[in-house]
């Protein structure tokens, strides 16, 4: 079967790789690039554990092929962490016990990052709606909403 040469900007670094067309983006990130922060729960778009950013927008990493990301910019939780731009969000997850087993956490954080970037404020209901695509099987949604809500308020106040 054919392999295809792809290039992408991955967490700020230009990379080049050979991939099989059938390989989805998160397998490529985890297996070939050793970035295991993005998780694979269902591989059918239901759970959201694989959420990554493709050209600045959150996507399901299991529902994008690595070849489709050719020429794109990809950002994972490793990149977000290294940037330090969402340290407050990550700390709030700890502070509010918004992670238990931690499997959904990277996906939750990626979704929360886009929410914070898209809207300055959000009600609890809007936050719930926004993260409705991310399953937490420990069912700790309340604490996750607490953490995101807290960060949005803090950032609002800091900007005043």
């Amino acid at each position: 079967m054919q392999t295809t040469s792809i290039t992408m900007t991955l967490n700020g670094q230009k990379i080049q790789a050979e991939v099989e067309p059938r390989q989805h983006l998160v397998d490529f990130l985890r297996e070939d690039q050793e970035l295991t922060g993005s998780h694979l729960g269902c591989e059918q778009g239901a759970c959201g554990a694989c959420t990554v950013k493709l050209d600045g927008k959150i996507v399901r990493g299991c529902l994008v092929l690595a070849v489709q990301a050719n020429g794109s910019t990809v950002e994972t939780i490793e990149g977000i962490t290294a940037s330090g731009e969402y340290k407050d969000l990550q700390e709030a997850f700890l502070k509010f016990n918004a992670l238990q087993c931690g499997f959904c956490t990277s996906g939750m954080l990626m979704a929360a990052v886009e929410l914070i970037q898209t809207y300055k404020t959000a009600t609890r209901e809007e936050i719930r709606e926004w993260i409705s695509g991310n399953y937490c099987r420990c069912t700790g949604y309340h604490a996750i909403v607490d953490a995101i809500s807290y960060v949005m308020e803090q950032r609002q106040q800091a900007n005043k």
Partner: protein
Amino acid sequence: MKAAAFNYEKVNTIQEALRLLELHNGNAKLIAGGQSLLPSLNMRLSNPEILVDLQGVSELKGISEANGVIRIGAMTTHTEIQNSELIQNKLPLLSKAVPHIAHRAIRNLGTWGGSCVYGDPAAEWPACAVALDGVMVLTGPKGTRKVAAKDFFLDLYTTALEENEILVATEFTLKASEKNYFEELSRRHGDYAVTGLVSQIELKESLITDCRFVFFSVASTPLIAMGMKDLILNKNLSDLANPALIEQAQNIVRVEIKTLPDLTNSAQMKTHLVGVLISRALHNLAK
């Protein structure tokens, strides 16, 4: 699960895509946003020889308005429709429907055209296309043709799109004065609808001159409740809140809309919900 092996080609024009479809003679699959295709590949429910990626075809993208017609390119994403001021102002029904489509991460990639040609009976866009009397623009080796949305959705996951054709866009002729209502019942926000209803009425001042009530996630395709037209045509908008009329409407749609069960909901339950939704729609339209 992991997808079986396939080849991949990204094209930049509709002509290139058509050439590849013809060359692979039924074994090539077009990929738009991939938000339904990738799960089916991962579950090995689909095994094409080659995927033809339409992401580079700029002529399939974007929303435009000309001569009272709004055109939504097949490769326009759900999020682009959600963010479009033109849609908010001219086709507000679509703006109301978007938040019900899956979740943000999926709306960022999933497309108008992908949803329409997939023909999922639980999907929002096919029902909206029918309710707004959209026209599907299809192109293939024999040229371009247009099919009314109400004639496009033929059966479960089956549309009027021929094997070697591509959906280019959907066109909507704008109405002078309209009112609409969208509601869907689902188990969790963004999940598949258990039952949904798209309502669109046309008005001359407060007189109802035309209407379309389209139920989805009730049968193999979106279904128009034809009986509603006889009931409310030439009535006044405020008459829609009349309890006797609402009861009549419930009886009409519960008989006319032949529901089918899905994995978790019986046909009887869907028939019940059909009546619930028409009542809510009429109440809201009358406001």
